[in-house]
């Protein structure tokens, strides 16, 4: 069970701004790591863009689950995990991170921030600690505030898109993805290929 990325974003009126991100791409093959990271940023931004304020959702894409929480104040968090990682813990993590972030970083900085300008060093530590969900969060079985039935489930990324929109088009237009990553996306079914090249066992 694995966490791959943890990001804090701001859902602005016009566009979604990435404020801070932490990644663990160690399980990917060396030459793919930077592309994978870019795709995770791209995905996180897209998901926040297509999620309403005040909602939680889990978006499934092949072996990955992207959990998103967009607060009413437009602060949002996305964690990209595998399909073993318990979603309950993922949402607990998002709640904690956004809470801490909002206390440490002034609201005024959110709409115009970027990973370079925002000062929030704790994110890498959170990602690393939460790799083992039971150590990080001794399963409080009853999460009083979190009503799991309200979490929207999307079975594919495509279901987030408007009618007629294609993921391919969004990828080509994206400013977040470098040329190499875009080319890579065209040649392979991105997520499944990148992952399997570095794993010795298929997870059932």
């Amino acid at each position, binding site marked *: *069970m694995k966490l791959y990325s943890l990001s804090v974003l701001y859902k602005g009126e016009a566009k979604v701004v990435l404020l801070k991100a932490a990644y663990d791409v160690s399980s990917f093959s060396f030459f793919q790591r930077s592309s994978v990271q870019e795709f995770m940023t791209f995905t996180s931004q897209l998901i926040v863009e297509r999620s309403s304020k005040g909602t939680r959702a889990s978006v499934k894409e092949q072996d990955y689950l992207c959990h998103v929480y967009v607060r009413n104040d437009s602060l949002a968090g996305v964690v990209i995990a595998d*399909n*073993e990682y*318990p979603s309950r813990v993922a949402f607990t993590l998002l709640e904690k991170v956004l809470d801490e972030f909002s206390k440490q970083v002034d609201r005024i900085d959110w709409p115009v921030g970027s990973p370079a300008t925002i000062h929030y060093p704790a994110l890498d530590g959170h990602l690393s600690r939460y790799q*083992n*969900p*039971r150590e990080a969060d001794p*399963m409080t*079985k009853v999460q009083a505030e979190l009503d*799991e*039935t309200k979490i929207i489930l999307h079975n594919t990324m495509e279901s987030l898109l408007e009618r007629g929109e294609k993921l391919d088009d969004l990828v080509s237009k994206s400013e977040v993805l470098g040329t190499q990553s875009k080319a890579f996306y065209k040649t392979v079914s991105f997520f499944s290929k990148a992952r399997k090249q570095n794993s010795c*066992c298929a*997870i*059932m």
Partner: protein
Amino acid sequence: MAEQRRIDRCHMYPAASKPRLYHCMEREILLDELSSTKHWASMHVSDHSGFHYRQFLLKSLISQTVIDSSVMEQNPLRSEPALVLPKDEEAAVSTEEPRINLHHLLEEEVEFSTDLIDSYPGHETLWCHRRHIFYLQHHLNGRFPHSMTQLSPADSPGGTLSDLHLIPAGSQLSQAMEVDGLNDSSKQGYSQETKRLKRTPAPDSLGLEMEHRFIDQILSTCRNVEQARFASAYRKWLVTLSQ
């Protein structure tokens, strides 16, 4: 370090009881593997191979017990504790035949399964594993009731090497492990398995009761659709077991 000490202890047996020496070492390795793979399995809860390996280890430990008990039946003299001068108190205790409590091991595995099912809802692998463990307990209760797993020479278990075939393997076991309780007993393999199950004593009713309570608790609190489905299928399977 600890592993080497344990294996050294095995070498304190006199050369004459070679079979027991080998079994002792193998048992230590099996037990060691069981404890060292626990963490990996708990971090890969949808990977069947980790749990399948644990099932293999437990089955091997059970088979070992059957072999040992028959060896002891045939060689009552050899069942005396090994005569080795101990260097210290700890060695004195450990020169006795290392006794593993199979029931305890299986109970621990059930607890492990419970913990994982509660923490990580909706993984079929975990429920499959639970069936295997319950099945092994059921067999153990039939062959070796609680009082006999300490392998004291006085109680001969009545089991023999030929009972090894009752630890199911391969396709027969997988049929018994069917996810959704089969109602179609016209499937030949399945009805052979039920005949076999019916020959063995009824599953320990206390164990069954506890399993049903566990299922009730899961069904009443879980919000994961898959988890509910697996719990219901497990219940159906338990019912077929006791018919």
